[in-house]
């Protein structure tokens, strides 16, 4: 998940660690440390974690006071963020809402509204002079329909407020309910306060906690029958919690990803995915390995790091097989939660194993049917893929055709009825050649008129057909007149017969065999 480090650079961040006792008994220089130094220290811990474990993540650095500034746009170059942290300058007052607007804006521009993000707000636990305005804008967020106030974020986001403050500080006590309100408004998030008085140690512990809660990477096993490989998913999969029509779904991804069978890529037909993840094989030690690119000139025997590349991994085999056959693997990642594994190339030569998670549930891709009803094709009496692989059981056909495939009658718009009658007349003028089409259209309109309680139309249509009959040119086929007469008389007698009966063409000596 992309992460925004939202750093408070107001003047109050330049306070010493403990204002109450400016000369702490510790002989070290911690007492002289400023809160912003501790904040930078903490951020570095987080960034070091990214460097170590989340190489494919993105992070950005935004600082705010009464204005916000994007110091470092989203990047995977975490070292550059660390450098930028050292150059932070202090500004004026704390305006948290300004900072949140900045984060929201930056994320929307970069990732749109569908990518889950994390916002780590590092502040000094003092909403300070901005407190009043924050309260005001929070209140107004309700009255004005949240047009300005950025919470809740217009994208899935976790907001963690990290307070570089002594837990007992009075201003933290007054600010905390405010922070709490911010988290509630966003719906997801947490507040972190050091456990014990402010020091490098407690801040380190606090950031370790932050990492543990929010930035731990996924580690699991990919199984396919008796074959398996340890893998990680990037980005780490998020638990699913959404309201469906008749239930609230809450599921998390298991540590075991189980391949259940395979499908043709064309058959799954671009199913909608809740999220997508790269599947990266882990080494025996549980590390993610990124080998240096092979230099075609040099021999493969490089350093010791290359050993990992030479231990076979099932992941690579699966990827190769899926790519070769142009197929996907249906897999289960949790209770009633499925997804597909496939080979994916980022429009370059590099291809990789990708996991697309469906929305949890068994009936989530209508054209695949209930997922639990999918079984081994080879065990069916007749293999639906055919002997030479030319047929496919997918997509599942719907039982009830939709209106656009039904030629249904719609007269609610102008012209609908007109064109239906014109169609009858067009066929009428080509009688007896178009006899079948004529009666088909006639019955279609007749049935609709009867359903709509529009008896008057039947009489009107009869009149039009009668006039058509009289207007027939002398060259017309005799059957034309006979059929027209039969039709308009039948329309007029609708009420005397079972109305469900269609008008059938009249059998004449001219109409040949039928």
């Amino acid at each position, binding site marked *: 998940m*992309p992460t925004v480090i939202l750093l408070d650079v107001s003047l109050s961040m330049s306070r010493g660690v403990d204002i109450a006792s400016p000369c702490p008994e510790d002989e070290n220089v911690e007492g002289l440390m400023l809160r912003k130094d501790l904040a930078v220290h903490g951020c570095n811990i987080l960034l070091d974690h990214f460097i170590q474990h989340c190489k494919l993540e993105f992070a950005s650095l935004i600082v705010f006071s009464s204005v916000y500034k994007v110091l470092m746009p989203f990047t995977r170059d975490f070292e550059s963020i660390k450098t930028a942290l050292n150059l932070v300058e202090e500004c004026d007052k704390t305006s948290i809402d300004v900072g949140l607007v900045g984060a929201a804006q930056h994320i929307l521009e970069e990732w749109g509204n569908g990518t889950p993000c994390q916002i780590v707000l590092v502040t000094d636990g003092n909403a300070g002079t901005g407190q009043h305005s924050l309260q005001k804008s929070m209140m107004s967020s309700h009255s004005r329909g949240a047009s300005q106030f950025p919470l809740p974020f217009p994208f899935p986001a976790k907001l963690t407020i990290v307070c570089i403050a002594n837990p007992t500080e009075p201003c933290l006590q007054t600010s905390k309910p405010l922070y709490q309100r911010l988290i509630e408004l966003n719906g997801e998030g947490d507040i972190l306060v050091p456990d014990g008085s402010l020091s490098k140690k407690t801040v380190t512990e606090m950031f370790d906690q932050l990492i543990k809660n929010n930035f731990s990477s996924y580690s699991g096993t990919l199984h396919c*029958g008796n074959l398996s*490989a340890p893998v990680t998913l990037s980005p780490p999969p998020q638990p699913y919690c959404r309201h469906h029509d008749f239930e609230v779904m809450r599921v998390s991804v298991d540590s075991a990803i189980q391949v259940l069978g395979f499908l043709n890529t*064309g058959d799954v037909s*671009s199913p909608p995915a809740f999220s997508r993840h790269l599947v990266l094989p882990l080494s025996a030690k549980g590390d993610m390995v990124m080998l240096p690119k092979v230099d075609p000139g040099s021999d493969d025997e490089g350093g010791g790091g290359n050993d990992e590349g030479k231990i076979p991994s099932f992941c690579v085999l699966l990827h190769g097989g899926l790519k070769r056959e142009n197929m996907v693997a249906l897999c289960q990642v949790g209770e009633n939660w499925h997804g597909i594994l496939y080979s994916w190339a*980022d429009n370059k030569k590099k291809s990789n194993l990708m996991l697309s998670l469906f929305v949890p549930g068994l009936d989530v891709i209508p054209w695949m049917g209930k997922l639990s009803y999918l*079984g081994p094709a080879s065990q069916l009496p007749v293999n639906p893929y055919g002997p030479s692989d030319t047929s496919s059981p997918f997509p599942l056909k719907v039982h009830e055709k939709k209106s656009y495939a039904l030629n249904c009658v719609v007269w609610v718009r102008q012209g609908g009825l007109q064109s239906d009658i014109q169609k009858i007349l067009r066929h009428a003028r080509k009688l007896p050649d178009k006899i079948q089409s004529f009666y088909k259209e006639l019955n279609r309109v007749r049935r609709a008129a009867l359903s709509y309680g529009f008896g008057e139309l039947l009489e009107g249509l009869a009149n039009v057909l009668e006039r058509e009959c009289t207007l027939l040119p002398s060259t017309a086929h005799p059957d034309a007149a006979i059929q027209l007469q039969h039709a308009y008389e039948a329309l007029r007698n609708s009420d005397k017969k079972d109305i469900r009966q269609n008008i059938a063409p009249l059998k004449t000596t001219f109409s040949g065999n039928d």
Partner: protein
Amino acid sequence: MTFPTSHKTVFVMDHSLTTSSGVKLEMDSFSKSRSSSGSNSQPLVQPMNLIPLLPVTKSLWTCAVEAITEYCRIVWDIFPGTRLIRFIAVDKTTHKLSSWNLEDQSLTNLMNAFMMLGPAKNVGVGKLDLLKGLRAAIEALTEPSAIQHEKRTSLTENATKVLNKGRIILVTKVDCEEEVKTLKEKFHDTLLHLNKIAASTDNLMAINHCDLVLLNLWPEGPGCPIPRRSWPDVSTIMSCELTNIQGGTALAPKLCNLVLKHYDLASTTVTGIPMKEEQNASSSANYDVELFHPAAAHAAILKGIPAETAHLKTYREGTDYETVTLKWCTPRSNASIELQHCSSAYRITSVDVNSRPSSCLTNFLLNGRWVMLEMPRKSGSKVISHMLACHGGDIYIHTMYTSRSILEDPPSISEGCGGRVTDYRIPDFGELIKANRLAPYPDSALESDDNTTPLEKSREQLSRHTKYWPITLSTTSLFTLGSQIEPLTTLMLKETLTEAEVIECKQVILCLMSMEARGDPLPSPMAGQRGKGMKREDQYRVVWTELEQYLQLHLHSADHEKVLECFMECHNKVETPEYKGDDKVDIDQALKELDDYNYMTEREKADFNLSSGTKHTPAELPIPDSKRRRTAPPPLAPMGRSSGVSLLTLWENKVASEQSRRCLEFQGRLKAEDNVTKLYVSLQKDKDKDEGSRKKTT
């Protein structure tokens, strides 16, 4: 939203609306059009002596039914099976036209029901009791739908939390506001009363919330005197709204507005669809087609910065709802066989379903073509934001990812673990993939004897197919033989074998035997390091060892065992070690037991065979068939990363460790201090301990 109000809707229709709607259809014009468009050979034979035809007028009832069927068409196209609608018509009596059953939720059935009901009837003044109809509608809402019933009786913790919400739409003509007020109040009283009754029964559900919509149908002409109004909170369980709807041209857009609101739908206009002209096939013009779909399909582009997307939204002529205009992109032919990344897919329906541009687009899609839709950005650039595609007869709008992907520039699979290995058995795995393809099971096949779903069956099959599966060529000799071991390796995977198949398998073994006897080289050059520099008999030995392991792992039936027996006989191995599936024997333990067995005396061996007869049964002993079938191989080779170990290596390790054990240093000498070793140290220790504890107790 959970338990949406739109799940259940009841239309209560006033069947006494015989009043003219004022909507006329000129019948005379149809004949005139003939003479004007007639061929030149009969110029203007306009007969002057014809009596002009009377125009046809729709009644309010006709307008109402037309409008309601259109409403249902849109709903059922987009939400088949999940949004239910039923009908009640009221004249002197109440007619229930349909139920919550899924069969009733179709246009054909609806049209038939209205056909049987017939046109509007005149009832005497005061004979029409709309309240009776509303009462029937509330009763209908208290009946659970199939899915509500299923959830309610599901015996899960959520069963009690199933909420029953619904909407009742009364279609009538209201003449004064007083009427609305009475209807609303009486409705509320009835609702409370019927809720009480429902709560006291088992099979009915009390209504948690009901939305009453009064659809005031008014003839074409001057506007309706009663203004539109809504009462969002009549009480905690009821909201109410009065909407005017006028016959004629304004009817359709008003109706669309209502459907959009009730079902949270949105409109997309596909613009710039190239179509051949009807009259002149050589030229083509661009057309627009409007579609409806759940509003969520727009979330990905509209949620966020409003100013960025304001330019997408417009109002179509005569409508009072917004539509998002997206541009048609010339479709790529191979789009459907690639995986497009999309975040959602929703069913659509066309708004003017029978118009030529609409049916042209829908037919194009129904024929299997996919259409990309392009969204112009404010900056002027364009991005593909949606895709229209048909799956099995339903047309869907897919939402594509439009923003930067967090998965950009991913490492290649060759850069990770195992990426440098070049001898994966990828073609073989391709065959495994094809053999384990999934297909939907028909309902008839679902009732299996053992309650396993087809998907679980597939998982079992996969597990059977991977019992012994070296993932690289260098870890196997058996699978480098290619066609030589076919069809044995395919047949042994099956759950059961026929007599003929057993013979085929045996032939493979015998053929290999005779090759060895003849001294033929193995058919395929032994790939990988294992075969290099090996003597021919060693190569065969490796293959035999591996084949034995393979056969041991595939004892799915008595017939499978026959193949193994054949193998054993060929190699003069009398005993068939057989493992009970329920005894988890791991290889270490098995080897240890084997070791012990070798050191035993004859007597001990006999005893051992008796006591652990279930584990190691000599092949000659007759075993009941049922017992045999249940036997399964030990959970041996999870052929993952650690699977480089073959039986040969295991054996070699064992021999090595045995040898090292033989030349082990004498323990006494190892522990000796200054060449003196204390004997019976443990005895001394025990004694110390005893004394210590005795001291404590005393």
